[in-house]
């Protein structure tokens, strides 16, 4: 019998369709989750009018966006303006191709999967710059350039953090990385890489506290200012898609991907991904936003040196103890991470006591 599913083109098309369905489905769930989690944190109810417990709120929102008038301002660079959301959105879908949802559910087991993900991540920024430039709006322009600076800077710590699990697994393929975690999850021996990767991921996805490109209190909506309706929805979808990708990569590289007990692998994978997504939402509801220059100095002066140190230490430990590197590496990494977390306040953002000496008390 002709094995239909083993044909590569068929698999790719099927995977794309599934990905798109998965993305749209997750989008609806995430919209609802985002609102409910924010509401829970903020001591209020959240949506409860549309459908039972407001479950249909996301559907209603989607229809609202679909039915909205598509406004294109008179002085925009039309072609670039129309293309920008597509350019932003397509790498996000493409990234799903290499994610190992379960042992058998991976579109392509690409042997350079990690590099492929990095490459797609860098493409994202192009869409944002296009949107910011073509809108012919100063807020959009500032938002677009902030996005460019931010995403290019944070690509480095993201990539450097990716290298650590790659070294541990000895492969660039995401499937192999999951297989390498048959006995233990990499988070146990490399928590620091997870923290740096997730922090850089927050910046890559333009989420709080790094949501400067669309900082609504400063730039109205940043690069999205001139967009409305479906085009706006594509940016929104892209942002959520990016979140899913970052969460999936975190789950794959550090939390053993589909590994788990009793339940099928895909459920384990999705559960891990959703825990990370909830973390995204928790952070969004908790933290204020950094300033642009503080964001850059945090990226270049803290995150990149930290990931570099971690990388060097990890490679030396693996080099010196090729057979039993797990335990020493785990101890070193946990110690480094705890030291970082506890010294965070003093080292990263030293509490500068305002210079009050020049002021004199009057009256």
């Amino acid at each position: 019998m002709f094995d239909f599913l083993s044909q590569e083109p068929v698999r790719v098309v099927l995977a794309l369709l599934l990905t798109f369905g998965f993305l749209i489905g997750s989008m609806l769930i995430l919209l609802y989750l985002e609102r409910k989690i924010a509401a829970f944190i903020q001591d209020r109810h959240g949506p409860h009018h549309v459908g039972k417990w407001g479950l249909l709120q996301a559907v209603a929102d989607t229809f609202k966006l679909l039915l909205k008038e598509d406004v294109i301002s008179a002085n925009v660079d039309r072609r670039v303006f129309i293309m920008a959301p597509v350019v932003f959105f397509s790498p996000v879908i493409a990234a799903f191709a290499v994610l190992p949802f379960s042992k058998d559910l991976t579109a392509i087991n690409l042997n350079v999967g990690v590099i492929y993900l990095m490459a797609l991540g860098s493409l994202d920024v192009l869409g944002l710059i296009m949107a910011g430039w073509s809108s012919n709006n100063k807020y959009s322009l500032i938002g677009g350039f902030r996005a460019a600076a931010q995403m290019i800077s944070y690509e480095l710590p993201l990539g450097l953090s990716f290298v650590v699990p790659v070294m541990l697994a000895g492969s660039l393929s995401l499937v192999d990385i999951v297989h390498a975690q048959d006995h233990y999850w990499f988070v146990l021996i490399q928590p620091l890489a997870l923290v740096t990767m997730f922090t850089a991921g927050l910046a890559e996805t333009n989420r709080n506290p790094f949501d400067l490109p669309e900082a609504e209190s400063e730039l109205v909506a940043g690069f999205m200012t001139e967009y409305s309706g479906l085009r706006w929805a594509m940016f929104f979808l892209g942002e959520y898609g990016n979140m899913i990708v970052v969460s999936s990569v975190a789950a794959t590289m550090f939390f053993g991907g589909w590994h788990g007990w009793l339940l099928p692998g895909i459920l384990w994978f999705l559960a891990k991904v959703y825990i990370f997504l909830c973390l995204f939402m928790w952070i969004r509801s908790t933290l204020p936003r950094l300033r642009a220059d503080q964001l850059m100095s945090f990226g270049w002066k803290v995150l990149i040196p930290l990931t570099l140190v971690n990388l060097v230490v990890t490679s030396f430990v693996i080099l010196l103890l090729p057979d039993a590197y797990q335990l020493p590496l785990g101890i070193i990494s946990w110690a480094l991470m705890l030291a970082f977390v506890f010294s965070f306040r003093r080292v990263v953002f030293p509490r500068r006591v305002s210079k009050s000496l020049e002021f004199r008390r009057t009256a």
Partner: protein
Amino acid sequence: MKLIEHHPIESKVAGLRTEEMLLNMGPQHPSTHGVLRLVLQISGETVTDVTPVIGYLHRGMEKIFENRTYLQGIRYTNNIDYLSQMINEHAFVGAVEQLLNLDVPRRAEYIRVIVDELQRIASHLVWLGTYLLDLGAFTPINYCFRDRDEILEMFETLGGSRFNVNYMRVGGVLADLPMGFLGRLEKFLHRFIHTVDELEELIGGNEIFEVRTMNVGRMSPELGIAYGISGPCLRASGVNFDIRTFRPYSIYPELGVVPQVEVSGDAFARYQVRMNEMRESVRLIQRAIEGLPGGPVRARMPHLLRPPKGESYYTVESPRGEMGYYLISDGSTNPYRAKVRPPCFVNLQILPELLRGARIGDVVSVLGSIDIILGEVDR
């Protein structure tokens, strides 16, 4: 109208010509607190100059006072600083009482101070919530508004309206405290003092909040005094200037107000001053409740007020600074001239001084920290 000179600047990179950009922020903008328009001159992310453009909410309040009787005027004070209605009413009726040379029953004075301080808490809560919203944290506003709502509900029992209460009268207040008000108030204060600690722990201990506010928008006391700044902004710069102690009114001298002063003069100091003022307000209300005397809440007054010829200026400490009402009476039923001394209008002037050289992100941080109410700036 050419607001700011436009001139290209030399770039550090040879051969690249860069220009400063004029960014029009407002009057329709999420964080200009109403309808303020800021014309920012920016060079990259750095702000080189700012011109605040005001007047979008001008309603001719002072002229409105001239066309209303004194009693009708009280209601319009609510729309001047729409976050501290009670304190505005207090200033207005205080000015009229000064014209009449009237003694207000002591119970009325106590009630006035209680509602004034409640209003101060409510106003600072709104400030805190919206300030954090400006900085990108969208949770605190819900906590702040939850507690503010309790205050507004208590106001509703006083005057029948949550927001524009119209509670003060010349010679006293509209009516005595309703039954159960004091119990509810005490319960609220008991809970609220912990809420302030909770808010301070959640917000003040946050590293991102600290880097966004510390050393941002530094104001020296000399500069503040030169610009006529008052209220928490000036006290955050180390100047002990509080109308409640400097030019005491009502029963504040008996309650023993402790002005809250910080010395660093940055946005974080202004935050600290306001947080401490909320605690101080709770203490003042508790002391006022302890000493609340009995008796009437309103002096006997004619139905139509005709103050004798003369003029009066009465100041109170509003949550934003020195709020004063200046009235001239020609002996008729309406004021001949009314003038408001708005703290926000004066405080706003210093914005360009504080913002030169700051980043775009600092614009909202500094603007939020000086806490302007556009209804009061434009009147």
